[in-house]
């Protein structure tokens, strides 16, 4: 094996010759520094390798060693609260070892090898166990119990199980399976490019609540669903993704910063430990795993980062948790794919992207879902995938956007026009869609209100009507509109400004419970109805717009959850009074 050497270097692509019995996707170590790479093409005894680290200074003739193992990551307690690079090297440990700039050729275990975890067995010695069965737990963070599961394709009798404190590499149980003994530790390895299997997939029927009004009300994503957020730069992709990571009601969040800005990851690292989960009041970091392969980090590792992230997500899903993965941005991943493909001199497809772009994207999104986990009790887990897309020039017709939209079922269209007038989140209500909304009607009926669905429909219709009326205004001017239409525009404006606009930076407005959302929308629509009635009775819309109660409606979003009820009741009373006195004026 020692005879294998580097024979060509072109950026992140290296050709190694003399590698015997190399397999596709084997991980190799390159050169004196031992840079990590992965075989992506084999030709005779020449292997083409994509290198996950910077190749500057590498020379032909340096040695290449095959680890004979595909790219794998370690799964076990300690993943939560960590920040990893694209190939699961913990960035905090990397910093301690090689300083403020990314070091090369470092092998760093992903999990703390010394830390002792308290293992509490659930299964008794000599009980029968089968694949996926939970035999014990480790309290990984105050929020999450880490389940220790029997590996896939292992069935048999538990011959030994211990209790106490163990490191991730120690053995806590042994299974006698047929003739062989299998040791079970607190951690195990998984190849990132192979999906972890599930028994079967279930239709999604429960929404992932995000506390973001435009998403929860108009374009909800289901737990286990897939969503795409395409948008030009500055339209708020990252803020939306971060809001989801903060407030989504998932048990575990995996946030993949793929080829994006370094300072954005710093922001997450600075803020998440300070922010509280609205339900448990624990720091959000305790349920979060970060994968950061920023734009200035090696391009091949960027390609791998998405798989590293999703494998960790699947692992927690298998424990029976609801997991949400945010990938920002899948376009950078696709570009990494294009760059490597270009260096391999492959025949390009559209816009230089490789012909297999669509396949790779759909394979990725197919790893999401609400599933029955491989386990005797057939427990349930879900993995929701939300991918940001950064289309060049904001043009959604480009290949990454189009291939993504073909496989995702929710489309949150970010709109540069809304962003430039600081309407945030700048999700366009006319072009976005959610194919889950109707599947989840029962959930809303049982958990929010019977009126939820009709309110949603009504609000969307008013907004649709507004855009038609705006076209008329463009031609004839606002004053030429009949009064009832002016009333519609008023209500639409209230929906846009008092409801859809939501500040991610305001302490209260940043998160709205589904109950408060329902109350807010109901009162806005009620005001709209009263306005329409009053107009019919001859009151000009300008007078209604000047009502004091209008101001109070705009205040609801700034009102803490526990005071909403009272405010709404006040508004109702005032609304009745003020409309009544308006009508009295007219009839006099």
């Amino acid at each position, binding site marked *: 094996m020692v005879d294998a050497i580097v024979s060509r*270097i072109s*950026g992140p692509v290296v050709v190694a010759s003399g590698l015997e019995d190399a397999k596709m996707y084997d991980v190799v170590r390159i050169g004196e520094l031992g840079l990590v790479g992965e075989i992506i093409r084999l030709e005779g005894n020449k292997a083409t390798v994509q290198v996950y680290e910077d190749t500057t200074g590498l020379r032909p003739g340096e040695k290449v060693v095959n680890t004979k193992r595909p790219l794998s990551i370690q799964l076990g307690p300690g993943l939560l609260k960590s920040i990893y690079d694209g190939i699961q090297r913990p960035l905090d440990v990397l910093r301690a070892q090689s300083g403020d700039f990314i070091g090369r050729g470092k092998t760093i275990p992903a999990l703390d090898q010394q830390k002792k975890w308290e293992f509490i067995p659930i299964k008794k010695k000599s009980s029968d166990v089968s694949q996926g069965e939970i035999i014990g737990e480790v309290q990984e963070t105050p929020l999450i119990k880490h389940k220790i599961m029997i590996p896939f394709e292992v069935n048999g009798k538990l011959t030994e199980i211990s209790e106490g404190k163990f490191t991730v590499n120690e053995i806590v149980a042994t299974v006698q399976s047929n003739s062989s003994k299998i040791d079970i530790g607190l951690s195990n390895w998984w190849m990132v490019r192979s999906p972890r299997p599930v028994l079967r997939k279930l239709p999604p029927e429960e929404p992932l609540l995000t506390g973001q009004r435009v998403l929860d009300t108009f374009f909800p994503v289901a737990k286990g669903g897939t969503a795409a957020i395409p948008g030009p730069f500055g339209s708020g992709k990252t803020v939306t993704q971060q809001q989801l990571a903060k407030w989504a009601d998932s048990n575990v969040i995996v946030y993949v910063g793929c080829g994006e800005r370094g300072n954005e990851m710093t922001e997450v690292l600075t803020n998440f430990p300070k922010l509280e989960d609205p339900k448990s009041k624990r720091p959000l970091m305790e349920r979060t795993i970060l994968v950061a392969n*920023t734009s*200035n980090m090696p391009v091949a590792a960027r390609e791998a980062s998405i798989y590293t992230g999703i494998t960790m997500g699947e692992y927690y899903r298998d424990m029976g948790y609801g997991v949400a993965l945010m990938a920002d941005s899948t376009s950078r991943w696709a570009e990494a794919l*294009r760059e490597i493909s*270009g260096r391999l001199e492959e025949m390009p497809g559209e816009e230089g992207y490789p012909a297999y772009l669509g396949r790779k994207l759909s394979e990725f999104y197919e790893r999401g879902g609400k599933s029955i986990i491989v386990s005797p009790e057939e427990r349930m887990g879900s993995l929701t995938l939300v991918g940001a897309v950064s289309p060049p020039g*904001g043009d959604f017709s480009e290949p990454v956007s189009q291939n993504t939209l073909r496989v995702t079922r929710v489309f949150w269209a970010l709109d540069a026009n809304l962003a430039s007038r600081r309407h945030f989140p700048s999700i366009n209500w006319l072009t976005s869609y959610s194919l889950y909304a109707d599947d989840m009607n029962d959930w809303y009926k049982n958990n929010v209100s019977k009126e939820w669905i009709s309110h949603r429909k009504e609000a969307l219709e008013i907004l649709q009507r507004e855009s038609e009326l705006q076209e008329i205004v463009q031609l004839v001017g606002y004053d030429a509109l009949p009064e009832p239409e002016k009333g519609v525009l008023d209500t639409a404006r209230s929906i846009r400004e008092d409801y859809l606009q939501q500040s991610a*930076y305001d302490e209260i407005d940043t998160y709205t419970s589904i109950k408060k959302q329902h109350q807010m929308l109901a009162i806005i629509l009620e005001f709209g109805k009263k306005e329409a009635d009053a107009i019919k009775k001859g009151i000009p819309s300008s007078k209604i717009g000047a009502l004091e109660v209008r101001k109070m409606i705009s205040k609801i979003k700034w009102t803490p959850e526990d005071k909403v009820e009272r405010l709404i009741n006040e508004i109702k009373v005032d609304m009745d009074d003020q409309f009544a006195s308006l009508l009295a004026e007219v009839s006099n």
Partner: protein
Amino acid sequence: MSGVAFKTLSKIAGPLIFVEGVDNAAYGEMVEIKLVNGQRRQGQVLDTRQGLAIVQVFGATPGLTTEGTSTKFLGETAKLSVSDEMLGRVFDGLGNPKDNGPKIVSKQRIDLVGSGINPYSREEPSEFIQTGMSNVDGMNTLVRGQKLPIFSGSGLPHNLLAAQIARQAKVLSASESFSVVFAAIGITSEEANFFVKQFEESGALGRTVLFLNLSSDPSMERILTPRLALTTAEFLAYEREMHVLVILTDMTNYCEALREISAAREEVPGRRGYPGYMYTDLASIYERAGKIKGRKGSVTQIPILTMPADDITHPIPDLTGYITEGQIVMSRDLHRADIHPPVDVLTSLSRLMNQGIGKGRTREDHRSLADQLYATYAQGKDARALAAIVGEEALSDLDRKFLKIANRFERSFVNQGLDENRSIEQTLDIGWELLSGLTESEMNRIKPELIAKYAKKTLEGGE
């Protein structure tokens, strides 16, 4: 490989030379090329295999011959000698002195293309930089360690804006001024002279390092120029604890040079012929802005680029915008209307603004006031477009009000003198004055408490 000279040039293609018989040139290794007439050029290995090295030549290839040219592999990757002596000096696009001063001799030689900053090592940029420009400070605030480009067009006064920012920039809590590293990338000598003169007049030249690659200089040098500037800036920031402002102009020329090499290598092109890896390449420049935990200095970047045909969707501004933390966009319409600086605040953005403003940094009302100004100005501009079709009389009362504010916003907020250095309080006060015609419910972006505290009392309820 060090020191061995090869005379085995087999092919010259544009800026690339193919040297045969070389077995182990390092990827990224520097090369010295000696022409038949004795001239020397620098180059760098782009692709290396056993028996062949492809070298990119910095400098002109005319006069280069396949026979007789000797290529020496220097055994190291691109490095720059750095020292304190660099302050106040002028260098060419490859880092050689251009001001008749001595060569920089230093034991400290730093890699030009270092590894990226570990995201875990970064410190969140949060110190407000007062540039004295209302449209920047008030609406698109710059903070220490940010990268905020100026998107301009040919004929627009981006240089005036950049020079004014460099001259006026200061951090309120700190006494020290910014050091400036200036990289001219393919700009005219006239433009370069303008900057030199500006630095001289403001007395900043002593804390400025200039790298000048002018439009008459070889385009291939432009690949190195911004990296020389950033290596110097990092040295000053992280080892000499300075706060450095880096101005890179014009990044469009840099991207053109990148495309030239890509074409010579016959690579599969991405959009408009630019290489598919341009995003990654630009990121390796822009991402070198920032702050590092436990180190005192900072690198703040203001790259300037001219958008071909004012098209913001062109790959150069597009990819830049995806990497940088916002953008300041120049508007031709405002320039025609004689507004200086002609900044279109609606398409401009600073992503790090929120970290740098608010109570204890600028003022508690800053965020909501800026949001309100944005929203009002946007509505005012819509009203202006509408008025052009249906006439101002057909507008609603509210739209007429917005239109008036939008006009005043451009004339008295965005517009300011070339020497006018506004404090953040002045900027915010002008903002409140503009809004004074609005009622409380029309200022729906601002909380009532703040309106009560800051709104201009004299004009309140003026309607």
